């Protein structure tokens, strides 16, 4: 039902465009140092290869790489300015009910709080499990699993003037606000519509309102809302009633979309530049120079005693967001190494630099982290395309093509085996319902063109077919396209590529705008990617349904228009299962069915390489934002 913006983790390294010559500079600096320190075994543990992708290894004390980068020794130092830099601004004005990218989630950690949230921990299981944040304790759940009662922790304050207590009504307002006609397109009210009783009616009506209406009208809608599933009997209690049991409701309520929203947010038009954002967290946004810089400073209204998850070590967090587009990754890397910046914002460590950074002198600053359940990129078939006499609608054709791809080559494009692993199913290691299987095995995952060709012939296409590929014109995508073209060519399939502008992947012709848009056949294949909205043993809802639930094909993320009622039924059952093990088993069933139908070709699952400057201490990676928790960091004195 949702997808995380891949803008950051997608653009691993080599982004197209001008001025990536900066890798000359960054890498040479690395190389000089690396050469000087002689050969070495990478201490980052990257050489451990496949181990990194198997979550059962994440918790082994032997795997120290998750904490090798952390730099937690010593006692915290108060003060200093944390410098973060990158090339993309937030896309929704930092509004918690609208920000839907990892960079938004990263920043929101500092100025928003949710009823439940995730702790910063190097133990992956702990990091993936929601714990009380604004709530005093885990919710009381009724026996039938339909009622969740949260009690607020005392002492939470807004940094209004004068400071005011955060109430349960603020949290109710936050959830309701998701349906504002201006905010809803950016965020994801879908999760709440699917779970909270009475929410669907309210949300549908509110979303359909005129987006140009006055703040007063919006305020009226929210203040007069009568949603049976959200009740606030008093200032410190909030009760959610669900339509059916949901083993992942805690994760849904932990999303920043459910952050508290003060009454002031109803006094202005959402997303307009200049709107003041209030904070109940350790930091508050004090300057937002749109397109250039965001500055957060300490929030005096926040007290450590009320917050088990965050800290307030540094004085100021300075985010520079206007580095020139494509030079950014390498330039950021250079700045981090030189110490003129502390953390990256939306870019990754360029793969070309990884090897140099694995040398002992740099490796402590290099972290390679899991995003369990990520499948990026993958190839999706437009099963409704009429091209080549509807070849892609023929299951045998798709199954033949499953053998075509050299997944090891794709791994290399994204930095090699130390960062990526071939994937052969929907659910990736670490996600709920992951049980390894491979319906289309090839030797070494390098593809089997002969088999592909013979199966294609058996399907009725001895002379091959021609497919149109819409590929994104930045990052590694052109390289992926060329690899796909090459691999398919060995199977007798001609791929004609059309580059499309990056922007938001949802437009540019991929996401259709009419229910039968896919039948126009503008494209036959494309290579999107997927990052779940949350991680851990209850994130089944955050992956498979969005991509393969036929009910969401227009205009959702089921890009290729695949629809199998059997899968939809399994999804519905999984989402309403009462126990995690039951849900996991059902997700696995769905996985099996989808792979049998072959509506897409999975390529790989990946690790995220991040770097930090030398003076950053306690850099803990949290899967929740796929990034470091900036509220854990202190700087060297």
């Amino acid at each position: 039902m949702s997808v995380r913006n891949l803008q950051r983790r997608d653009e691993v390294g080599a982004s197209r465009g001008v001025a990536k010559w900066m890798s000359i500079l960054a890498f040479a600096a690395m190389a000089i140092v690396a050469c000087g320190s002689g050969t070495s075994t990478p201490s980052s543990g990257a050489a451990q290869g496949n181990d990194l992708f198997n979550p059962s290894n994440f918790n082994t004390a032997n795997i120290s790489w998750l904490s090798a980068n952390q730099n937690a020794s010593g006692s915290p130092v108060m003060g200093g300015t944390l410098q973060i830099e990158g090339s993309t601004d937030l896309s929704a004005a930092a509004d918690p009910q609208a920000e839907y990218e990892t960079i938004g989630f990263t920043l929101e950690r500092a100025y928003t709080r949710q009823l439940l949230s995730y702790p910063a921990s190097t133990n992956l299981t702990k990091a993936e499990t929601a714990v009380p944040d604004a709530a005093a304790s885990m919710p009381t759940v009724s026996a039938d699993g339909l009622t969740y009662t949260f009690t607020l922790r005392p002492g939470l304050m807004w940094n209004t003037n004068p400071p005011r207590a955060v109430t349960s009504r603020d949290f109710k307002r936050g959830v309701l606000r998701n349906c504002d006609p201006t905010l809803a397109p950016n965020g994801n009210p879908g999760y709440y519509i699917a779970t909270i009783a009475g929410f669907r009616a309210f949300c549908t009506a509110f979303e359909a309102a005129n987006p140009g209406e006055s703040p007063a009208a919006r305020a009226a809608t929210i203040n007069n809302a009568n949603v049976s599933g959200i009740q606030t009997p008093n200032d410190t209690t909030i009760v959610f009633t669900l339509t059916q049991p949901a083993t992942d409701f805690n994760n849904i309520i932990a999303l920043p979309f459910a952050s508290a929203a003060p009454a002031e947010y109803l006094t202005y038009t959402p997303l307009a530049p200049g709107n003041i954002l209030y904070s109940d967290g350790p930091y508050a946004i004090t300057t937002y120079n749109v397109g250039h810089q965001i500055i957060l400073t300490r929030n005096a209204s926040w007290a450590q005693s009320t917050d088990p998850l965050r800290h307030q070590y540094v004085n100021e967090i300075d985010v520079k967001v206007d580095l020139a587009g494509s030079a950014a990754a390498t330039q950021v890397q250079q700045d981090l190494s030189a110490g003129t910046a502390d953390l990256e914002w939306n870019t990754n460590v360029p793969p070309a630099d990884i090897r140099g950074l694995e040398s002992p002198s740099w490796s402590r600053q290099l972290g390679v982290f899991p995003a369990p359940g990520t499948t990026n990129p993958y190839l999706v078939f437009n099963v409704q395309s009429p091209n080549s006499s509807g070849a892609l609608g023929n299951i045998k054709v798709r199954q033949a093509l499953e053998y075509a791809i050299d997944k090891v080559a794709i791994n290399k494009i994204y930095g090699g085996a130390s960062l990526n692993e071939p994937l052969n199913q929907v659910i990736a290691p670490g996600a709920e319902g992951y049980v390894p299987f491979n319906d289309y095995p090839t030797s070494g995952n390098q593809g089997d063109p002969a088999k592909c060709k013979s199966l294609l012939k058996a399907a009725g296409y001895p002379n091959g077919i021609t497919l149109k590929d819409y590929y994104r014109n930045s990052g590694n995508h052109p390289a992926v396209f060329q690899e796909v073209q090459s691999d398919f060519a060995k199977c007798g399939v001609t791929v004609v590529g059309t580059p499309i502008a990056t922007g938001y992947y949802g437009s540019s012709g991929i996401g259709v705008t009419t229910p039968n848009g896919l039948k126009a056949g503008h494209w036959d294949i494309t290579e999107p990617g997927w990052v779940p909205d949350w991680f851990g043993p209850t994130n089944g809802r955050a992956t498979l349904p969005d991509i393969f639930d036929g009910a969401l094909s227009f205009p959702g993320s089921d890009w290729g228009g695949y629809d199998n009622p059997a899968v939809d039924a399994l999804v519905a059952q999984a989402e309403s299962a009462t126990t995690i093990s039951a849900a996991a088993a059902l997700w696995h069933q769905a996985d099996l069915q989808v792979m049998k139908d072959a509506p897409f070709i999975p390529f790989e699952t990946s690790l995220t390489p991040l770097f930090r400057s030398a003076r950053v201490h306690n850099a803990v990676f949290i899967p929740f934002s796929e990034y470091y928790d900036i509220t854990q960091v202190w700087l060297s004195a």
Partner: protein
Amino acid sequence: MTLSAVDVARPPAPSEEPAVKGIEGRTPLQLVVARLRTDRVALASVVVILLIVALAIAAPLIAAITGHGPSQTNVDSGTDANGQPLPPGTAGYLLGTDNLGRDILVRIAFGARISLLVGVLATAIATIVGVVVGLFAGYFGGWLDTLLARLMDVVLSFPYVLFAIVLVSVFGSSLPLTILVIAFFSFAAIGRIVRGQALSQREKEYVEASHSLGAGNLRIMFVDILPNLVAPVIVLATLLIPAAIIFEATLSFLGLGVQPPTPSWGNMLSDAEGVGFQAWWFYIFPMLFLLATTLAFNLLGDAVRDALDPRTERLFAGRRKNKPA
């Protein structure tokens, strides 16, 4: 035997020529060629251009000899463990590999095809269109001239790199579009000059004479006036070729020109960015070939211009006078 008029008009046979040998007249073309022949730089450029052309023509042959195609990716054996390119001198790869394991030498050879094709074709189209537009504008004058001249002014006012980006982002990048875009933004330069020349030429007496002989407008434009413009047009065209090549390289470098996997020197440089310093061969070689080509064409164009321009004769004369007797 009666003498026919033809017999009478027949020029004397060589044996009938007077014994005194006079100075032989040379056609303008012969003069130009003679001048060019003495210009060593021009000769060198011609040689370089011919070599590049040969490289382009031989591209499939090179691919066959090395066994590497220009577009077939070869990530598994053509890159190292981290997916980075292999250096020149690696077995079978004279100039090394690129980020997808492809042979750089082969890609450069095929890239030469693109550069030359785009350069020459875009220039040809721009020249033809420019000449026609300029002739019509200059010769007819009046409202047609106003319309066409203003059109050329408008085109010259376009922020052209910007517009090229918009056009390509709308229609998608492709080889034909790249050629058309470059031609579109270049024709006005030629058109303007031709128009100016046509404006001045149409006042000349030979045009008047042609008129009175009953020649039609088209005939006067293309048969009488045009030959007088050949010199400046040729110079402009020769100088336009490297500009077109540079334009294509820039577009491809920005990701807006020739689309992958077709190799173009510009998009090879763009691919090289991501790998940068570590794979210096990936950007140095395409850069060298690109510079060599554009430099050669520019040198040739300059030489042709010098050769065609009678005024520089004085300078030639100066030089010859200084030579030892």
